[in-house]
């Protein structure tokens, strides 16, 4: 188990390291002076000089990257070239908004998806199963920003049930502002999770240990809740773990469309201002969060499934 965790941790660090190298390499690969590329039309000779020095762009690529990596280990991701504020503090001030949004989206969609998936597995072929099947394929393929736009159009602009702009204050205020964006991000996950849970539930209900439990005369309720369900949600856990990448992409749109604060809104603004240090900081932080999420989902899998635990 320990070796497994260590190996996964090493992989996670390697992925972040590759991200750092890639993002810095891109600066040097682009033809022209990278400093001018970063600053764009607003570059003044003085600003160019300051940025070049601050980011170490006057030094060779490998030294610059190594320096960046060393600073990163100390939690230093450089400074915003325009305001001089630390990139880390800017990014971390926005991160909680995005994480809350992603957590809210995944919690409601996982809860509903697991219920629908289990129901579809028990009542295979019923009209609920069939319509859930078609609906999940449909919602999976519709991009989340289209969902977000319709949410905004119908429930915020049309019916005025929910606010269209901002993040709210206080617990209930924030929850109220979360409804539409979390709906837009989560809706396709309901279908995804329902499909995966249905498939694994069907497989488990036919498995030997469940047949034996039935032969022993255990009630169906007991079998489902104490044996089958735990295993049946495993693929959903993996799916969510690997899907955090897509959740972040979806969050970018939800934040822009509902004018919410967060990493997505921050990075889009930074791109429009051509503020590469901020872009770089946002990407690194999201990559780290994503890598951690994958790690956690692997560990949860091992914790829920004795077969995986044994194999470690």
């Amino acid at each position: 188990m320990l070796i497994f965790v260590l190996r996964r941790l090493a992989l996670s660090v390697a992925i972040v390291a590759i991200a750092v190298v890639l993002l810095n390499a891109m600066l040097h690969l682009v033809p022209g002076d990278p400093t001018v590329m970063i600053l764009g039309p607003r570059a003044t000779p003085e600003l160019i000089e300051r940025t070049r020095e601050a980011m170490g762009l006057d030094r060779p690529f490998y030294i610059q990257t190594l320096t960046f990596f060393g600073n990163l280990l100390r939690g230093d991701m450089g400074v915003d070239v325009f305001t001089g504020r630390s990139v880390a503090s800017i990014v971390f001030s926005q991160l909680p908004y995005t994480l809350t949004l992603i957590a809210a989206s995944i919690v409601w969609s996982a809860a509903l998806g697991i219920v629908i998936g289990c129901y579809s597995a028990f009542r295979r072929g019923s009209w609920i199963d069939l319509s859930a099947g078609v609906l999940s394929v449909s919602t999976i393929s519709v991009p989340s920003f289209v969902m977000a736009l319709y949410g905004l159009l119908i429930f915020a602009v049309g019916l005025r049930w929910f606010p269209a702009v901002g993040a709210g204050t206080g617990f209930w205020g924030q929850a109220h502002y979360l409804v539409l964006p979390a709906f837009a991000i989560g809706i396709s996950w309901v279908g995804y999770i329902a499909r995966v849970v249905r498939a694994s539930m069907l497989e488990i209900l036919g498995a030997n240990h469940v047949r034996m439990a039935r032969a022993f005369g255990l009630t169906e309720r007991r079998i489902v809740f104490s044996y089958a369900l735990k295993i049946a949600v495993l693929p959903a856990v993996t799916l969510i773990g690997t899907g955090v990448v897509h959740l972040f992409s979806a969050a970018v749109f939800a934040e822009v469309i509902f004018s919410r604060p967060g990493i997505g809104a921050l990075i889009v603004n930074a791109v429009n201002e051509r503020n590469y240090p901020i872009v770089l900081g946002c990407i690194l932080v999201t990559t780290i969060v994503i890598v951690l999420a994958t790690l956690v989902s692997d560990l949860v899998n091992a914790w829920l499934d004795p077969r995986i635990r044994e194999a470690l």
Partner: protein
Amino acid sequence: MSLAPTTSSSPKSGRPSSWRSGWRRLAADRLGFFGFVLVALFIVAAILAPWIAPYSPTQIMVGPRLAPPSWEHWLGTDQIGRDLLSRVLLGGRVALTVAFATIAAALTIGFALGLAAGFGPAWLDNILVLLFDAVRSFPTIVFGLAVVTLLGPGLSTVVLVVSVTSIPIYARIVRTQTQALRHADYVDAERAMGAGIFRILFVHILPNVVGPLVVLASMDVPLVIATEAGLSFLGLGVRPPMASWGTILNDGYTFIRNSPWPVIAGSIPIVLVTLGFTFFGEALRDIFDPRLRRDV
């Protein structure tokens, strides 16, 4: 099931027994056939767009501003009086171009890298797999934003971003298949008879990966189209006044309090095309390679 050999005993199980039987099965799958019709309509409309569009997509004030659908303007008009139907049709051309270009690029490069990983030495395999994992742990949109910051927005940037992020999907499946086959008995036998690496690649490996690759590509199209529209929506893809479904949505978003029609006009084609490719892709998967069912 009896029409196409699907068992692993046949080395070329990825292919249907014939195109005709595949077609018959597609026609029998109602949802898949519906998807096929949507996909065909999309491709025909995108190719014919310049000739069937009723107005110029960039000509302003061909009608009133933000008008609802009417006989003159079937999908209404946008904030500067451009005809939305014409813009949607031309936007379809952009979507088709991006989808075709990125999938061709990602397939080719992914195929080559997958072969290198599956056929090459172990250290190369390890490095490539690590790279695939790293690329897959960037959110496409976020990675796209980094590239756009440096290269500036535009159609070619979109193609670059989406191809790079799709390469690992193709490379992984080619790698898995190659590894499974490189020590198959009949490949060993062929090698013992003195066959070169290219003969093994083209006669044995290629036919086995074509099926899964076609299926993956058809399922990848909706993602590619959604990413193009998404980047253009954020103002980081296609440049105005060129029409893309994303830029139509962006205009619609800006004026959402004045008129719902631009948002509706921009989203309908995205929804129909992604649905079409998804249904079609699922049907193709059932026909070509039922084994993939568990992975996707």
